[in-house]
């Protein structure tokens, strides 16, 4: 059979060449915006207004990056997006950790400690995945007001946690369904209770789904703009909101290179997370069950 595969007719070879050609073109097409962004972000302004979008930078410079980080104007202030970058982390990290933890506990309880109506509870939680963000803006604002945490970092974290639980619960529930119930029964007989079984038995085998949940939540919350702009005060705004303000602040000439650098800065963390943990993401999503 190997012979048959190796000896290609000219037509087959042509077809293969075409196939690769189309695929390479498609790949280039997809990477193009990133390339343009990167190139534009290291060009001086004069080069942008003179040359075409696709020309290589003649005198590469990092000034747009430093300006975007520390000097560019976002509305009335001119402090760059650096501060907001850390703001985002201050929101994302607790929100991801809390929503993942609660999702794991929910998934564990819904699969290993079934109670009457547990399927209904799960179905209702699943419903949360499909609620459009815009619908909850007003009631959420009201609720945050009642709780006395409107326009605060805690308020924004709460919003993200509430919204994230639907997804994290779904992830963990579907993962734990594949883990044999007998494992939990055995641990019960060994003398472990609800939390000990979770901590000692379930959590140690949950690494793939924890990675999925963390990547998903990190990306969602980091990229959020709507909640960020609606529920944060000036000093707690996330980087997405700052980026928007930076791009929309027009004082004279539009600095495309600074805009692009700021956009790159805002996109970098999610890229890094995906590159570092991406293979676990795919593995975790496809992981069916844990075999003993």
């Amino acid at each position, binding site marked *: 059979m190997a012979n048959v595969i190796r000896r290609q007719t000219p037509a087959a070879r042509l077809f293969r060449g075409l196939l690769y050609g189309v695929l390479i073109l498609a790949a280039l097409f997809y990477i193009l915006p990133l390339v343009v962004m990167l190139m534009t972000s290291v060009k001086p302004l004069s080069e942008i207004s003179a040359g075409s979008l696709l020309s290589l930078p003649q005198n590469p410079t990092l000034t747009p990056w430093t300006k975007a980080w520390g000097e560019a104007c976002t509305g009335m202030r001119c402090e760059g997006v650096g501060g907001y970058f850390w703001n985002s982390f201050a929101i994302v990290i607790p929100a991801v950790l809390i929503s993942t933890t609660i999702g794991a506990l929910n998934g564990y309880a819904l699969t290993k400690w079934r109670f009457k109506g547990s399927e209904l509870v799960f179905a209702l939680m699943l419903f949360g995945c499909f609620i459009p963000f815009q619908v909850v803006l007003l009631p959420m604002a009201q609720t945050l007001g009642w709780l006395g945490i409107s326009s605060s970092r805690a308020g924004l974290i709460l919003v993200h946690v509430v919204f994230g639980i639907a997804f994290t619960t779904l992830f963990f529930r579907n993962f734990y369904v594949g883990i*044999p119930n*007998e*494992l939990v*029964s*055995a*641990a*019960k*007989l*060994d*003398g*472990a209770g609800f939390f*000990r079984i979770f901590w*000692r*038995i379930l959590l*140690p*085998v949950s690494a793939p789904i924890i990675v999925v949940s963390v990547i998903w939540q990190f990306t969602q919350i980091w990229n959020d703009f709507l909640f960020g702009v609606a529920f944060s005060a000036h000093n707690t705004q996330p980087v997405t909101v700052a980026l928007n303000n930076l791009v929309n602040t027009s004082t004279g000439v539009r600095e495309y290179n600074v805009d692009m650098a700021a956009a790159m800065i805002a996109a970098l963390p999610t890229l890094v997370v995906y590159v570092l943990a991406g293979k676990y993401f795919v593995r975790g999503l496809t992981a069916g069950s*844990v*075999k*003993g």
Partner: protein
Amino acid sequence: MATLQLHNITKRFGDTEVIKGIDLEVNDREFVVFVGPSGCGKSTLMRMIAGLESATDGDILIDGQRINDVGPADRGLAMVFQSYALYPHMTVEGNMGFSMRLAGVPKEERRAKVLEAAKILQLEPLLDRKPKALSGGQRQRVAIGRAIVRNPSIFLFDEPLSNLDAALRVQMRIELARLHDELDATMIYVTHDQIEAMTMADKIVVLHDGVVEQVGSPMALYHHPCNRFVAGFIGSPKMNFLQVTMTGVTPDGVAIRLPGGGERSVPVDGQHLAPNAALELGVRPEHLVLDEQGPLSGQIKVLERLGGQTSLYVQMDDELITIMADGDVAYRVNDTVHFGFAPERAHLFDTDGLALPSLEQHPLAGLTRQDNRAPGSPSEEPA
């Protein structure tokens, strides 16, 4: 070490009653096997004894103490699961010592106990391995080891050999029997495999649709099944059943007319039967004998040569009758064979499926596995 009593145990899931009032007594150091087809409630019953399910009604007593409200870990039981249920991220030693770790037993003591159990099960070289680096039989032994270190008053086994291949199953069966002698423990064992039940049990409990059909020693169940279900379930291949009519009752038994017209008298008690009652005759394949003068006959449809024995599947009217014959019989498919049976090996069932009681007990009916040992010799069985 421990006795177990069940009084009127009932389990309902919603409106469906899966266990319908079971009474049972398990004696100290007894090896009791719950056997039945899938869905008969045997695993649910075991999970209730273990405390993993609550009983809807009734009492569970260990050594006379009601334990319905005692948590699973505090009942002094250990359970071995069908899927082994080993903790995948822990080593063999970690798995076996987990219960002691939870109980706060110091490390040296833990290790000593694990080593002791590992010695019994020949697991010493594997203590540092993770479950995924073990074979099926080794995993099963680790699961048993995890039960042993808890030093339980009663061992529970939930279909522990079902995931093993045939050869390994036979080996583990022998090992479990040996373990029972060595540990002198009370053991309850759930299986759907009647061979496991026959070979290991002191006492078999046959369950069907949430009720106990019969309790007794393997030999008693084999020779004196109390109804048609037990008769069909115990023994392999299955017992043959034939429609017969009663022609008379004598002090020596019940006279019947066989499908081919022949007449026989079966030594069972038929005093309460109405005249000409419809009856069902049950004869095990190994009790049917090929005989040119035999009262029954039929055409061979399938012939399976096992070497030592030959299974003949014989068409008789609408029934396919199984006969276990000698390995060297010269018949071929489509040959007509005549056969008969010894009347004292036959069973008669009334229209309700209840067996007519035998007039004479089989001499081995009271035998348990324990009795197979030579008197005086302690627990010495070849492993």
